């Protein structure tokens, strides 16, 4: 048996699901809990093939409700545990993820979005953005990374374990069916070899010493008797969440300084937005690109700065305005006009964004041009 799943760093050509399984191994995850659903199945398949070689475990549960709760249980026992799902499975997992928010359990959940609502398609969408950011009966106190390449899937799956265990909020890697199933190149590596230490894990219960004497008692509570008690706890969580926000937010931007039109997208659609931005620049259009990498917390301050100088925002997503809502909240009060390119459940290419902006500039999209952010939703 090899000591480490990956020695050094190497270039590989694989599917995104495979990249996630390798990342979990590289991050020294102990166990995956899961229930099959397309398009994330191969994360489980690769994990079950690779894991036994490194003394890692896998448990297939009876459904996603169980997979979510067993992941919580694994984490409580001190294991670096994770799960993966998509679509209707993501809906079911919100029950457990909501508990993870309440008990501050650092679960890691990889989501490969498929079409919705309900069974819809097994292919692709960005329609699980709101669900992944705000699912459950709470305040969405979680960390959500939206990946746009296989390199991202690998990097942010490793990072998700560290961020989850450091801040003790459930952490999500939000991919999609395209990323799950396509093949492209990436570098996989041993995080330690890059000087990245993995956050230590520990059991939540049964620590050494006398509770209340030698250490704080582990009081895991998700039921409260009074409104005041709950309010005090949630307020403390909100404060901690706000404090971590500047440390955790990530985004990518290009050519935003002098840009008149900003293309805004997340996940795989950001690749189309970046390609379109570069093409438009080469045609003399002052275009810029902004991609939130963390959707929760959202890089609101950074986007607000850009909103103050840009003349127009164009939000593109494979959903009917889920990123749009995050953007609108982030820049509330700014007056930059907002256009939308929304295709729920369908992919978006760079070429069509260039065409869209071409027609926008040429005034072919009548009536939408003067729309102001506060007056117009995505529909």
């Amino acid at each position, binding site marked *: 048996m090899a000591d480490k799943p990956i020695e050094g760093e190497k270039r590989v*050509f694989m599917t995104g699901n495979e990249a996630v399984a390798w990342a979990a191994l590289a991050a020294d995850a102990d166990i995956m809990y899961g229930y099959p659903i*397309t*398009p994330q199945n191969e994360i489980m398949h690769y994990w079950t093939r690779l894991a036994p070689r490194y003394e890692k475990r896998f448990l297939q549960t009876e459904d996603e409700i169980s997979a979510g709760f067993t992941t919580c249980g694994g984490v409580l026992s001190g294991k670096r545990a994770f799960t993966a799902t998509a679509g209707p499975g993501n809906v079911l997992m919100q029950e457990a993820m909501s508990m993870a928010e309440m008990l501050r359990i650092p679960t890691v959940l990889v989501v490969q979005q498929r079409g919705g609502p309900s069974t819809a*398609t*097994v*292919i692709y969408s960005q329609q699980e953005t709101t669900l992944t950011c705000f699912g459950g009966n709470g305040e969405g106190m979680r960390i959500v990374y939206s990946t746009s*390449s296989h390199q991202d899937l690998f990097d942010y799956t490793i990072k998700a374990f560290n961020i989850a265990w450091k801040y003790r909020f459930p952490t999500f890697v939000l991919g999609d069916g*395209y990323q799950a*199933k*396509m*093949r*492209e*190149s990436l570098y996989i590596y041993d995080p330690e070899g890059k000087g990245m230490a993995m956050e230590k894990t520990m059991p939540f219960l049964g620590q050494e010493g006398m509770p209340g004497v030698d250490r704080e008692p582990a009081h895991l509570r998700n039921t409260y008797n009074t409104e005041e008690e709950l309010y005090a706890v949630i307020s403390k969580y909100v404060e901690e969440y706000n404090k971590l926000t500047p440390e955790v937010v990530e985004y990518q931007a290009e050519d935003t300084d002098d840009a008149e039109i900003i293309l805004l997208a997340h996940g*795989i*659609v950001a*690749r*189309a937005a*970046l*390609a379109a931005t*570069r*093409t438009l620049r080469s045609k003399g259009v002052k275009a810029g690109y902004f991609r939130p990498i963390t959707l929760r917390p959202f890089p609101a301050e950074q986007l607000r700065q850009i909103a103050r100088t840009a003349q127009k925002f164009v939000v593109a997503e494979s959903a009917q305005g889920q990123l749009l809502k995050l953007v609108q909240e982030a820049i509330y009060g700014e007056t930059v006009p907002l256009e939308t390119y929304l295709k729920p459940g369908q*992919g*978006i*290419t*760079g*070429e*069509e964004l260039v065409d869209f902006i071409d027609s926008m500039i040429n005034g072919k999209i009548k009536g939408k041009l003067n729309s102001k952010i506060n007056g117009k939703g995505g529909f």
Partner: protein
Amino acid sequence: MDATVKIALAGEGGQGVQSVAGIMVEAANDGGREALYIPNFGVEQRGGVSVAFCQISDQKIGSPKFKKADLVIALSDRAVRRTRQYVDKDTLFIYDASLKGLENELPQDAKKILAIPALEIAKNELHPRVFNIIIMGAAIEATKIIGMEQAKKAVEKRLGYKFAQNPKLRELNFQALERGARLVKESLA
């Protein structure tokens, strides 16, 4: 975005378009280029039109699917109807010559349309099993995304374990590659 070669291969489930797409992009990747391949897939376990979207470039590739291809190869009448949406004035459209009665179904605005007798050659000259390798030969000749030697190496990498048991298969596959390339070369000459 223009330096990227975009290919859509489409056929009936079982014709092997996904396999050759996989071999081609892996060869391009092994050659140090950027490649991206995504199969279409639906809820069905088998049957239906199978489309492979491939892109090869010297830079990181943008969106995984595309509006218009440089090369479309369609291997069944349903595949022709499904893929003509990816054709514009810069597209080479190749279909199998055995498909009949498609006069009104073919794309109208392609740069060029070629009918190649790949199915017939596979059946009568080589072996039905290498039909998809003939198509691979045609695809690399039409796009030059990889050279013939690279293509052979890639086929060897994928099928070497079968060649080890039966060396004749190697020759048959390499012939299929060359025959496919020649079909396109002669048609374009």
